[in-house]
């Protein structure tokens, strides 16, 4: 978690039912590994990764969340300021697909900000598919977001999730470039250590303006 140079700091949250592979997607993306030995996420957890999109570096502060319905209320408080959202369901769990629209709606209701989202159907490696590709595509179209089927286990399309999301983030951030750089008080192209921490809520402002 070193503080290298980056152009933007963006808060991203990962949402979806319990057991769909949210933590595994993040571990694969951030630490390049898949672990059968992982624990259920209680509350939230977070990881940091710098994403290179063309000539820009986007520092992602990615928040992993507990999937069980009853944690939704308390984690929702902390969604604010999120600029990117990854909605995940499992291709082998029909319920998780049925519920993912609920997750999408709950975000649309709780935030007036326009966020960059992506829909992900995970566990592409399994033979026991219960949700067809076309269904995922249709849902993604309905909410106007990109869609990918992935396997955290086989590291398939995992980087693509973040590249796709990153492309959209970059376009929006650049459109609002002037505001962002004013808001975040960048100094010599780099956040100052203390200020950076103060600015964890700063992406909110960039978000509002998108």
């Amino acid at each position: 978690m070193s503080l290298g140079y980056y152009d933007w700091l963006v808060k991203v949250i990962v949402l979806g039912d319990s057991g769909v592979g949210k933590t595994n997607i993040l571990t694969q993306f951030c630490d390049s590994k898949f672990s059968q030995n992982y624990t259920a996420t209680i509350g939230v957890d977070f990881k940091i990764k710098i994403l290179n999109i063309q000539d820009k570096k986007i520092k992602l502060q990615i928040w992993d969340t507990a999937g069980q319905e009853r944690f939704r209320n308390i984690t929702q408080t902390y969604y604010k300021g999120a600029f990117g959202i990854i909605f995940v369901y499992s291709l082998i769990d029909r319920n998780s697909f049925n519920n993912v629209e609920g997750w999408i709606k709950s975000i649309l209701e709780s935030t007036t900000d326009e966020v960059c989202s992506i829909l992900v159907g995970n566990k592409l490696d399994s033979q026991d598919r219960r949700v067809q590709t076309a269904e995922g595509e249709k849902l993604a179209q309905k909410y106007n977001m990109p869609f990918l089927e992935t396997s955290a286990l086989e590291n398939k399309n995992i980087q693509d999730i973040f590249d796709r999301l990153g492309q959209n983030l970059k376009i929006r951030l650049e459109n609002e470039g002037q505001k962002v750089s004013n808001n975040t008080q960048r100094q010599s192209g780099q956040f100052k250590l203390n200020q950076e921490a103060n600015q964890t809520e700063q992406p909110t402002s960039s978000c509002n303006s998108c």
Partner: protein
Amino acid sequence: MRTTQLTQCIQKEEEEDELFEFQFDNQSEPQQNLQTPDFQATKQNEVHSQISSQAQIEQTDQYGFKSKINLKHYKDRKTLNARVEKWRQMINEFEKQTNQLIKERTRKGIPDGLRILAWPLLANIKKAKEQANTIQKLSQYSDFLTKEKFKFEHQIRLDVHRTFPDNVNFQDQTVLSESLVNVLKALSEAIPDMGYCQGLNFLTAALIMVTNDENAFWILYRLMTHYNLTAKYKDPNSLYREFYILDNLIQQYHPITSKILKRHNIDLFYFTTEWFITLFSTALPINLFYRVFEIFLVEGEKTIFRCALAIIHYKEQKFTQLNDFENGLQYLRSNEDLLNLDSNQFINLMLSKYKFSKTVIQQLDQKYKKNQK
């Protein structure tokens, strides 16, 4: 202003040491005959020795953890033997013991092999059975497992193999992982308005590594009904009460940490949710968790806040040096440097540095409720 009042309150009642509503029933059933603590006698040890002998996999500690666990639990063999003898006698005539003695001895730690007998007494599970009998007309653990379908079984099974991945007992289909499923299913039936909440899997797993399924179930039942833990599992949103109370105590005992947390917007939600939901069973080395847990059984909720403060004590120095959101929070969330804690040192610090009575907690609780209105 609020802090000043709190200080006065803490000072005033500093030496007050009340027990957590401890009711002993003089007509309690005679205790089963005690043998000297023998790990082989308990189920989990049978399971564990099976696993060890079958596979000779990696080396684990007595509870099945592969990580390096601090086994320096008692000062020496002689102290341990004396303690075993004292607890044996105490368990045999538990109803005759004074609350003060029980408290003092529990604070020193119950010998491992006797926990299986001592915990049900400390938690007074007899009351739990009476209550279940009154409310649901069910008084046996097995009564809660007769259904064919359980509403929460899917979620429970999802979480079982994600419970202590570092522990051989919960990987794949072991006897203990089935125990874990059953106890959690029974609990979700026994307390239907709570059902199953993620995080309970860790607490329950930690208990069934020491005691049998039935006792674990009744202890949990008692935790929910008598120790008032239900609210946070029913709706984790109610943890704001815990955050509020702990926040005030951190201001009081660790003002520098408190300032840095606020400066960087590090909400207690981010790193203490897991502490409260799993009762520290994921944060502390398992031996130390058991020490804190049994003190909690005797002394009640203030133990939870004392333990949280003690963890902050150990993390304070490094945390204040980090002084930024990401690194600071990552450090507060990590358990690595807690793995090598000396259990006795931790307990001593927790009990001597944070001497406040339950009245302090009650007052903060009332303030929180008032603010909510």
